[in-house]
């Protein structure tokens, strides 16, 4: 099972410039762990000291906005696409 993740431009500096990454995971949290396992530099940006997905990261999945604390129960299916972005800040 593979899910594609769209990476925000600022994080591509640690993703070899790739716009899309692919990994396995049945939940968003599982998918993020798989990405971090493969790319330790990316781990710093996805997970905080307590091991939780950073609070300001949000996901867009099938038209829904999924917040970081919901990522552990949001299930994924083979072929899904996920957009990783951050909570809007500013005007």
């Amino acid at each position, binding site marked *: 099972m593979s899910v594609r993740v769209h990476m925000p431009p600022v994080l591509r500096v640690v993703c070899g410039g790739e716009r899309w990454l692919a990994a396995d995971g049945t939940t968003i949290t599982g998918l993020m762990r798989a990405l971090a396992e493969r790319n330790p*530099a990316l781990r*710093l940006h996805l997970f905080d*000291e307590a091991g939780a997905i950073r*609070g300001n990261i949000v996901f867009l999945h099938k038209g829904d906005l999924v917040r970081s604390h919901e990522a552990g129960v949001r299930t994924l299916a083979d072929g899904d696409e996920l957009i990783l972005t*951050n*909570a809007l800040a500013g005007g």
Partner: protein
Amino acid sequence: MSVSLIAGTPKGAAILTSKDRERWDLHFELPGWPVTASARDDRGRYYIAVNSPNYGVALFASDDLKSWKQFDAAPRYRPEDRGNPEHHRIVGAADFEGVLKHGGRFVDQIWTLHWAHGTLYAGVSEAGLFASRDRGESWQPVDGFNNQPSRDTWVPGAGGLGAHTILSDAKNPDRLWVGVSAAGFFRTDDGGKTWAPKNKGVDPSVEAAPASTGQCVHSVSNDPENASLLYRQEHRGVHKSSDGGDTWQVMEDGLPVTELSDGHHCSFGFPCVIDRKSGSVFVVPLDGDNFRFPRGGKLTVYRSDDGARWKPLGNGLPGDCYTAVLRGAMSADQLSPGGVYFGTASGALYAGADLGERWQEIAKGLPRITSVAAYAG
């Protein structure tokens, strides 16, 4: 005589290089990353610290100032470390999802990087000290500092509880100093195992603050080869110590003295930089803590040979200037004659030749400049 400058901004690093300190080339690196600090080690590798409210803290390294690679590791507290509630309240504006409500201690910014005796040190917010002995590949907390016995009395400044200054002694690897806003200045003489406050002679930032750890130090500078001579820009004025920080004296003769919000009069400002070859020290006074711009709108750097008397240096600097120079935004290239550089909160960068006798605007239109470091050679 070539010099490189790394100016950190909330939108990346402006890197300027010059072979003659007159003509400068600029390129912009790490776009999108708030760049908070930089350093260079004794083998010529450059380090940049970044932080993002969304994606956390990280470090990059480069051997040529053009190609930057992020490390897999960065300073991080242990999950069981408890945070300072008041610091959480201050930095919590960016904590949309309430992570801080769990009470942990998080590294939300690297304020400063310092290379000494084969170790790269990072001073961070929430206030703490970390060390890397493998050129940034891994980081260890300096527990003696991070668990300093007075820590529970430490009160954050308006920008949070940050360890923003690290100084070293070239002749004594066991001696280091760290400055924390607003808990004052600390020194270790045993390689980081124990730390003592070094604030005698400096008023606490407010009367209610602890006498020994209530000082709002803004920046401190020394020459590592003559390390016990220290100059300190405090919220409450400019001070000098000749004994490694054991005692401090106010040294403001010739500096503009203004009124703080609590009625105290002193020379308020942020950066404090020493030119090692001449021993000259530089500060940029602002019109008190309420206004935080140069008095009368005339941007002026002040220089002193020994702290006893200060000389204004404004040749080439603008009037009608209502910006500030932040604590990390000034540096000296340590060449002879010495060059001094600073950036403003409104994105202009100045080079001061001949120890600041002549200033030249070498960049403008940059984002808010939060750090400047000059590297000769």
